[in-house]
């Protein structure tokens, strides 16, 4: 059971055996995707026909990743959307955290619960509800003022808003948790030493929050990049990567998708490494 209790050699090996199987299961699909990015065949399927970089660089009739216009564009679109979502989520997440942890007003408890609601609403519903509402507002603007509000049609602004609507809740939780543990006597001390309120915020509180801000940013970026359900409902003419890949996978996957997947895997791993370095450790470490 636990190391301090007597266990037979079989019992001791069991957890590790299970772990090995578990991680094999976990990484099998990813490994397969990675491997078949290099297969010299028109489809990502066995048998293995030789190593090639065609799916990256292109060759013969094959459009490699770096030449696939729409794919690259969607990669860029996803990055752009993720950047915006991250910016908004961290900013609003910070104001929310201060609102919930510091301010005192009636209905604060209710508001803090309401902020968690987006996390229990299926992404699809978030998508369609925002789509419907935006359409209604756009209709209203058109009827009332004759305004053509393009950003309310399916497209990137709506995608950003849709992802933001629940990612900001996660950012709020992350930043709020850290703010809660902040020792307010530090702020009093700074105040006592002559700092103005804004200076206290800038020189003491925000530097303390920095790890949480960075963590929230990293999580927001990742979650935005890989979001599908909400994005699917709100995407317009320029689909982000996940939506584009889905479309192609339904028609018949080409190994170019493997190539872009491998690229994503490496990028995620790098981002994760930065996160690790920055201090996101396994739970319970101070």
């Amino acid at each position, binding site marked *: 059971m636990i190391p301090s209790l007597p266990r037979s050699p079989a019992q001791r090996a069991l957890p590790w055996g299970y772990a090995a199987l578990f991680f094999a299961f976990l990484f099998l699909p990813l490994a397969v995707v990675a491997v078949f990015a290099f297969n010299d065949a028109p489809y990502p399927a066995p048998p293995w026909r030789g190593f090639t970089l065609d799916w990256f660089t292109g060759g013969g009739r094959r459009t490699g990743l770096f030449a696939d216009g729409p794919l690259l564009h969607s990669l860029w679109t996803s990055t752009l959307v993720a950047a915006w979502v991250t910016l908004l989520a961290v900013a609003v997440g910070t104001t929310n955290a201060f609102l919930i942890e510091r301010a005192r007003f009636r209905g604060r408890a209710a508001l803090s619960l309401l902020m968690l609601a987006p996390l229990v609403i299926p992404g699809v519903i978030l998508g369609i509800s925002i789509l419907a509402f935006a359409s209604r507002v756009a209709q209203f603007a058109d009827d009332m003022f004759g305004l053509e509000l393009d950003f309310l049609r399916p497209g990137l602004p709506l995608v950003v808003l849709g992802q933001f609507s629940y990612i900001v809740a996660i950012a709020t939780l992350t930043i709020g948790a850290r703010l809660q543990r902040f020792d307010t006597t530090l702020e009093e001390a700074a105040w006592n030493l*002559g700092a*103005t309120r804004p200076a206290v915020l800038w020189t003491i509180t925000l530097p303390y929050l920095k790890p949480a801000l960075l963590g929230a940013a990293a999580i927001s970026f990742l979650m935005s990049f890989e979001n599908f359900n909400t994005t699917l409902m709100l995407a317009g003419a320029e689909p982000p990567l996940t939506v584009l890949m889905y479309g192609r996978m339904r028609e018949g996957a080409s190994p170019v998708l493997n190539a872009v997947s491998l690229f994503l895997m490496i990028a995620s791993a790098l981002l994760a490494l930065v996160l690790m370095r920055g201090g996101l450790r396994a739970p319970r470490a101070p």
Partner: protein
Amino acid sequence: MTAPPGAPDLETRAIVKRFGGHAAVAGLSFAVARGSFFSILGPSGCGKTTLLRMIAGFQQPDAGEILIGGRAMAGVAPNRRPVNMVFQHLALFPMMSVAENVAYGLTRRGVARAETARRVEAMLERVGLPGAQARRVHELSGGQKQRVAIARSLVLEPTLLLLDEPLGALDLKLREHMKIELKQLQAAFGTTFVYITHDQSEALVLSDQVAVMNAGRFEQVGSPQALYYEPLTPFVAGFVGANNRLAGQATAVNGDIVELVTPQGLVLRARRRGSIAAGDAVEAYVRPEVALLARDAAALPPGHPVLQAAVDSLLFDGANSAVLLREARTGLELRVALPQTGQFADLRVGETVAVTFDPERAVCFRSGAQGG
């Protein structure tokens, strides 16, 4: 702008602070002379922290005035008062180095970099941490952190330095050492220190003046010696220093001396404090070092009531050794300090000894007396 010479650095006039229906600070008026070390001594919950926070500006009094350096502080924000504070848990900024901590106030004021660095260096030298600029807060020992906290405040040359039980978190030896350091620092800098604590030993050792606080009021303000030898109320007598409390009824009052009898019938004499009439319920206080011990009553100085008592337990504590005695007839308990000559080092539990004390050196109050 400094106050006219001779004016107190801190003065309060009838300040009151209420929380709900309860007055944490009930109409306090006092003044602290320039350059002195003033302690406010009291048990937890007596309101001393509230008082300190009002002086610092973190809380506003419900009534009354606070003047620092002669200026009224009503409506003045904490960061604008000529007051700095050393917090109970020090509140050093963990994300900054020692130099950045000490320089913080100067930087906020816009002092030039070179000048700031110079002053930080000078201050660190004066508090005994030369060259510690680059160290991180978590690398420092308890005593070193104390010194950084003090340096951080003193570098701003405040009129008043407030200290909120700063030695509480330190272990005994370090605390004893820091008491001496604080006293020396205050003398060297000449800044007025206002120090709050519940530890009467700290207050006595460090201060020029001590105010004993209880339930929002000062029971007595005076020099440590005055508090120790001439307590004005039963609370002060019991709180400052160790004391034996003997309750009873006054049977006769002859001038300054009160004769009282305990419920068990023991007759004692003590010096009167305040007005006492025969028949009043009274409390007498005898300090452990005031009582005299002898193996044989004949060895004691004549003229004072002698008690026979058995040794209940021996409390060996080096030079602070004491013995708990139980009076033979009435069972009254008495704590008596053992003389430091080692005369009674061979005392055994169960032995009978003779005890007496000079009534002039014991004080007696009417029960429930409150000081002024």
